[in-house]
């Protein structure tokens, strides 16, 4: 078959593939934003970047940022998968409370710690499965479907703790919240491990691509033979698992399960972290490490405002300012502006 039009194509094919992950890493708006926030923190508190090694563990403000940001980062990992399918999970904060309550009640009733941890994680999986079934089988809109558990979940957690703050002194649970692994605080270690594992799994298997396909066009995904329903259930279940992990950290940190306040409003921070990381609420392309970066940005701002001595009310205003800035940088309008600029610089080969 002759193709007389072949010469119309660009003769030199550009190097195949999406830009390599690290190639333009430092020019991404998220990375620039994080650098700015960290610089501001450094100006406010000259010791901000100093990290010391003491008693087999790293100490310093930067480590604190990571440690405090770990629960939201872990939530954001699961939330990324859900948002990539064009969904959202509002229940993760409540699932944190359930998971903490389950673990605390089990250890205080004399069960071994490993069993308590397993039960807490299983509770998270069940919660996620429930959300997934509401979304796929009953075809309820994700925001409504997960709102059910957001409200009911906290009540469930209170039922489990019988309305009290259940405190414990189990060393394993406390270790999850405050311990040290390889010189890092356990929550930081868990967040990093989960991020690496999840990224490897979605990118080394076909899951990442298939989830993106479902998020971009669920109907076309079905026509292409993708089991869209199964993938959706999987995404919500994974989000539940992540929330349970974050719930264990939150409980271990305060050595108790507080059904009213554990994970309160953190679902919003998690959604924000994902959006800052560049995953669109319209579904499709996603990046788990970028969502974790988004969580770190949020925490760096929180910490900065705390150490600056401003009143905490100020926190919300500054936070929203930075967020608006990042969102503007990511918006199609600025992308268009940028493109116009770059095409003006290039040789103008485009018709």
């Amino acid at each position, binding site marked *: 078959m002759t193709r007389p*039009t072949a010469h*119309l194509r660009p003769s030199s094919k550009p190097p195949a593939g999406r830009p390599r992950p690290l190639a333009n890493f430092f020019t991404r708006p998220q990375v620039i934003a994080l650098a700015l926030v960290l610089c501001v923190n450094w100006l406010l508190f000259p010791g901000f970047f100093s990290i010391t090694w003491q008693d087999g563990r790293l100490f310093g403000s930067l480590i604190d940022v990571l440690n405090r940001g770990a629960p939201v980062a872990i939530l954001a990992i699961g939330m990324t998968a859900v948002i990539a399918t064009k969904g959202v999970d509002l229940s993760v904060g409540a699932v944190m409370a359930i998971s903490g309550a389950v673990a605390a009640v089990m250890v205080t009733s004399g069960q071994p710690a490993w069993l308590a941890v397993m039960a807490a994680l299983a509770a998270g999986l069940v919660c996620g499965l429930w959300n997934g079934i509401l979304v796929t089988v009953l075809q309820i809109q994700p925001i409504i479907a997960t709102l059910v558990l957001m409200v009911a979940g906290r009540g469930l957690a209170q039922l489990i703790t019988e309305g009290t703050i259940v405190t414990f002194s189990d060393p394993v649970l406390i270790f999850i919240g405050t311990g040290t692994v390889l010189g890092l605080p356990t929550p930081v270690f868990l967040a990093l491990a989960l991020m690496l594992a999840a990224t490897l799994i979605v990118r*080394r298997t076909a899951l990442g691509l298939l989830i993106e396909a479902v998020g971009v*066009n669920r109907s076309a995904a079905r026509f292409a*033979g993708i*089991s869209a329903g199964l993938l959706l259930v999987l995404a919500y279940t994974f989000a539940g698992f992540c929330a349970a992990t974050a719930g264990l950290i939150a409980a271990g940190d305060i050595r108790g399960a507080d059904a009213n306040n554990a994970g309160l409003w953190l679902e919003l921070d998690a959604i924000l972290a994902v959006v800052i990381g560049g995953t669109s609420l319209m579904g*499709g392309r996603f990046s788990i490490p970028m969502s974790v970066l988004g969580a770190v940005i949020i925490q760096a701002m929180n910490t900065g405002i705390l150490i600056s001595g401003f009143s905490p009310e100020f926190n919300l205003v500054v936070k929203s300012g930075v967020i608006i800035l990042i969102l503007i940088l990511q918006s199609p309008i600025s992308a268009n502006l940028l493109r116009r600029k770059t095409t003006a610089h290039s040789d103008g080969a485009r018709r």
Partner: protein
Amino acid sequence: MPQEHATLLRATGIAKIFGSHRALDEVDFDLRAGEVHALLGENGAGKSTLIKILTGAYQPDAGQLEVDGQEVTFRDPQQAQAHGIGTVYQEVNLLPNRSVAENLFLGRQPTRWGLIRRREIEERARELLKTYGLDIDVRAELSTFSVAIQQIIAIARAVELSGKVLVLDEPTASLDRTEVDLLFKVVRELKAKGLGIIFITHFLDQVFELSDRVTILRNGRKITTQALAGLDATDVVRMMLGKDVAFDHHLTGIDAAARGAVRVEFSQMGRAGSVAPFSLTLHEGEVVGVAGLLGSGRTEVARLMFGVDGADGGTVMVDGKPVSIRNPAQAVAAGFGFCPEDRKADGIFGDLSVRENIIIALQAKLGWFRALSREDQIELAGRYADMLDIRAADHDMPIKLLSGGNQQKAILARWLAIDPTFLILDEPTRGIDVGAHAEIVRTINRLREEGLALFVISSELDEVVAYSNRVVVMRDRAMVAELAGADLEPDAIVRAIAGTGPAQAEARP
């Protein structure tokens, strides 16, 4: 009849251009008092564009409108309404959760001292509906009534507001026979009162039942306006599909006997309210074409075959073995592929790259854990893009940036990549440029020669005839005829679609 020949509405030389596409080209149209004027044409013929211009939703790029002999311009539907032109759409666009009376008088409620006079509204609503032969509780919510009653209420409202010209856009699409009769009775009464009625539908028998004259559009041009009295269904279908052009290239070398072994066998597949049970056998190296008007059940057959809709019963055999096809994933596992009619909604993944769009079905078939490596993906996408001549600057650009023809070729490539045994193509050449069109027809011929079984739905009869070994004809949601060999020519298909031809006699066993 009074004012039999008074022309209510006249449009001359109407043109409408969207981008580079001429949706309407020099179209004339006139509507007389006391007539039902059917407006016919396949999808994309320009019916809805013309209606939108007549009702003020669009402004024409050229041409004039006259109402009662006075030249007018409509800037919006309200102005058209003020000139007496009202529209009732297929989907009733009233407020389902308000009462019938409120819907009838919405926006013009009689008030006293700023308060709505509910009792008066209800009284007037009751009287108004009585003239339409409806005696219903006007205080009940609109949504508690059947679609037919809601349609009549919508008509009553439109006539009250406008009162001269009534446009009915597919009003019967979701009605059953008795409801259609009820609606037609109302329409005939309005006609007797001297209203001009424009009637749009896909049901040919209803056109003949109700209409006095017909205007047929094709590809944005008017083919004819004439009295229905001198026409039969075959003439109308022929004019709609444009089969008066010469067919010089059909049956070129397609030997019905050249087909191979039985590949796929559907027997007694059907779905209530969608398609009557059908049986069809497809052979290796065979193209079975599907002809029929829009709404005849063509797409529904394809959806059943591919498991998009569940069948009520029936069996599927692939290479002699029974398979269960209850969802598309099972169909893909059985080696089926399906290029859907609505490319944008059901076909492409707009934000994903051309490469990913091509490999996605194969990846879905391989499963979650056997991921195609990047190199495999690049190789596959490159191979099929070359084979089908997909023009993309690079395969990593989002597919939404490609032209319609190249998107269609990419979806075809997606299915070729799974090495299918059976391929369903629903309107594969609709809305794409001439070059891509030819490429797709060439590909269909080549795939047949390579031994694939294909099921190709198309409105382009000369095209279907050119590449099909057999053609099945759909009418009223059933397979009504099968044409092969010497009978396989556009005229016979047109007669079978219209239900007037000898093809009836040789319907499938």
